[in-house]
């Protein structure tokens, strides 16, 4: 393969005619009836409800949907007149999860990987590596280990890695969903810099419209039933009232609109103390470094506590330690008799069945906590483990409240992102713990799921449950009220409101 002509890659023209894709073994099409023309150099934000097929379209454009045994295609999808699979290296795809995209051990090799795959000469590879790292603003030695990077840096590395192909079409699949606010801007600004230089065509998928609305010149909204719901300049699409409300119904974060949330911000200063941490040092591993030192705080019934701070500051470690899952390195976490009941006062020493009735912890990745093959069984596991007479009514009520009733037979792993999140919260509530801990509950969630979560958590707080949330989401913390623990630089500062 010869290097692309000229100093800049040619921007790609995209055309879809009646295009659709059905994954093998699925009845419904993931995307269907798509008719689109993107002119070279156009910057497009692709929106749609979860399940509308946004990622499928991106993967198809990247040519990684697979062959005919992996699914069925209808219509045409062409990059510069050829199918994506035949245009290797013309489209570069960056995925959502920073962790699952790193292939190699060193930063330089990681960026060189794509250019090597395209069989570039050695001089050209290194020229591209330097230019790509420069473009994304990663000023690191070439032998810097890829493990020693922040989330934002990893995403910029992923961006640099596809830039080494000098793609004419840049495809970004929720590239900032897992990042803290600084990381979001870091990655977005790198993308803008890259586009300003390369003039490549851009298609980005993202729930949060505000991040990209000023960068793109076209908004395309996919309809969950196939086809396109709205298409036009952001200013144009976002001011049409009918489109705005349809976007909101689809769970898209429309700028200037807050999702409709039930209930009010809880204002109670909190009831009795349930858990007290004194001089607490937390660490992820037995011998590893201390993440946060000298924490003093109390967890009160009926109060929300937000734990914030940059990626990697030790927020989750602090929360897991408070939740009795990690052993405190120093200091103590003690539960009051009202919470302990028949168990001891050290949550870390509680047996699993004792823990699950007292403190529920919802992990960031819902899949880590799924134990069974159906939603119904999943909800019943906790109560069954605890034993005793648990009213089956409670499970039905929970399913109803979290809109899971129609999914009781479904396999938890096949649910959408929002459904998985709702299920993971519901499973924890099934054993009625008095403290609920959530690790990044709103990561990558659409506006509908966000609003449902906030509504539910407000009710819980009003009912006297202590809700601890590790989150970057300032709006989420505002919506729940209560206190905030800001973790950074190895220390925590408590802010009451």
């Amino acid at each position, binding site marked *: 393969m010869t290097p692309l002509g000229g100093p800049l890659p040619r921007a790609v023209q995209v055309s879809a005619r009646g295009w659709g894709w059905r994954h093998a073994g699925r009845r419904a099409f993931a995307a269907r009836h798509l008719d689109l023309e993107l002119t070279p150099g156009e910057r497009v934000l692709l929106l749609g409800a979860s399940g509308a097929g946004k990622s499928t379209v991106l993967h198809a454009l990247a040519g990684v949907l697979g062959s005919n045994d992996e699914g069925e295609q209808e219509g045409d999808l062409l990059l510069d007149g050829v199918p994506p699979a035949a245009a290797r290296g013309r489209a570069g795809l960056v*995925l959502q999860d920073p962790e699952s995209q790193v292939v190699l051990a060193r930063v330089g090799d990681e960026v060189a990987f794509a250019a*090597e795959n395209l069989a570039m000469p050695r001089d050209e590879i290194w020229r591209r590596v330097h230019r790509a790292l420069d473009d994304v603003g990663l000023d690191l030695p070439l032998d810097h280990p890829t493990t020693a990077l922040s989330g934002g840096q990893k995403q910029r590395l992923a961006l640099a890695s596809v830039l080494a192909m000098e793609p004419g079409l840049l495809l970004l699949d929720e590239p900032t969903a897992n990042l803290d606010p600084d990381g979001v801007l870091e990655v977005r600004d790198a993308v803008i810099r890259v586009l300003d230089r390369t003039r490549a065509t851009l298609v980005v998928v993202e729930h949060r419209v505000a991040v990209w609305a000023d960068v793109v010149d076209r908004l395309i909204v996919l309809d969950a039933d196939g086809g396109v719901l709205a298409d036009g300049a952001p200013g144009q699409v976002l001011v049409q009232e009918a489109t705005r409300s349809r976007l909101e119904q689809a769970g898209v974060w429309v700028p200037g609109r807050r999702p409709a949330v039930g209930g009010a911000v809880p204002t109670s200063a909190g009831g009795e103390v349930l858990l007290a941490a004194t001089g607490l040092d937390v660490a992820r591993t037995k011998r590893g470094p201390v993440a946060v030192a000298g924490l003093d705080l109390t967890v009160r019934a009926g109060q929300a506590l937000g734990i914030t701070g940059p990626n990697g500051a030790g927020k989750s470690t602090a929360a897991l330690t408070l939740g009795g899952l990690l052993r405190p390195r120093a200091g103590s976490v003690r539960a009051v008799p009202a919470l302990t009941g028949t168990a001891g006062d050290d949550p870390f020493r509680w047996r699993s069945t004792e823990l699950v009735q007292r403190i529920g912890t919802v992990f960031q990745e819902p899949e880590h906590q799924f134990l069974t093959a159906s939603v119904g069984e999943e909800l019943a596991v906790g109560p069954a483990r605890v034993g005793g007479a648990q009213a089956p009514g409670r499970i039905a009520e929970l399913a109803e409240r979290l809109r899971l009733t129609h999914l009781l037979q479904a396999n938890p792993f096949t649910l959408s992102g929002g459904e998985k999140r709702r299920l993971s919260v519901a499973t924890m509530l099934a054993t009625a713990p008095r403290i609920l801990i959530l690790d990044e509950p709103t990561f990558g969630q659409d506006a509908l799921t966000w609003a449902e979560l906030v509504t539910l958590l407000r009710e819980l707080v009003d009912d006297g449950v202590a809700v601890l949330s590790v989150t970057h989401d300032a709006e989420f913390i505002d919506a729940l009220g209560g206190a905030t623990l800001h973790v950074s630089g190895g220390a925590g500062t408590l802010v009451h409101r």
Partner: protein
Amino acid sequence: MSTDYLTPVLTGKTLLRANPVSKLFAATVITLALMASIDWVSAAVVLTCELVLMPLLGISVLALARRIWPLLVAALIGAYGTALLADKTGGVVLDVGPFLFTEDSVASGIAVGLRGLALALPGIFVLLTTDPTDLADALAQKLHLPHRFVLGGLASLRLAGLLVEQWETLGLARHARGVGSGGSVGARTRNLLGQSFGLIVQAIRRATRLATAMEARGFGGGTRTWARESSFSALDAVVAAVGLLIAAGAVTAAVLAGTWNFILS
């Protein structure tokens, strides 16, 4: 905690500069020479040479022992077991109840222990002084192994390191759901199986995502170039020659001493 197999702590400045292929060659001929015969002379010669070369690892004996202690224990157990079970000929060294050691059985035990250690050390030398990425470069460029195989292996090494972290996270996540460790042996076994299954599911999903990311970067095409050239230097000739010398020395010494005991004869 994630174990980073892709960027291990490497030691020994000189051997680090040698091409992985020459190191593999030296280790292979030494191992072949040792495997060809079960006798204490060849094992002792190889082990002596390895101990003489130990400073090349640039790591203290204590630090080395800390990293390879399971091998030392295994060699000791092998030696003890052989001394206990080998033919009881020669003078009695120790006779306490069922424990009978004779001169010959003790000699066999020592030979087995030495041989085990001597066999393990060449691998240790390669492992401690070779960066996996360099190894992949060398295997693909010098030995012309298929690049899909080599890079796939390299990528899986990174995923294997993440499994440790995943396992711990899964354990915590399950504990939080009320299915932690504890309870009867049956409950523990069920829990362990459940967690293992969860790990497999997560590993497959992660591997699938990584494969997509690799494919999206043009991986899997016919021809491929390499950003870094894997090259041989004079040092590699020395490494290979030393390997051959040690192997030949061990065989010669054993034959001359009359202990050579070819396994296929």
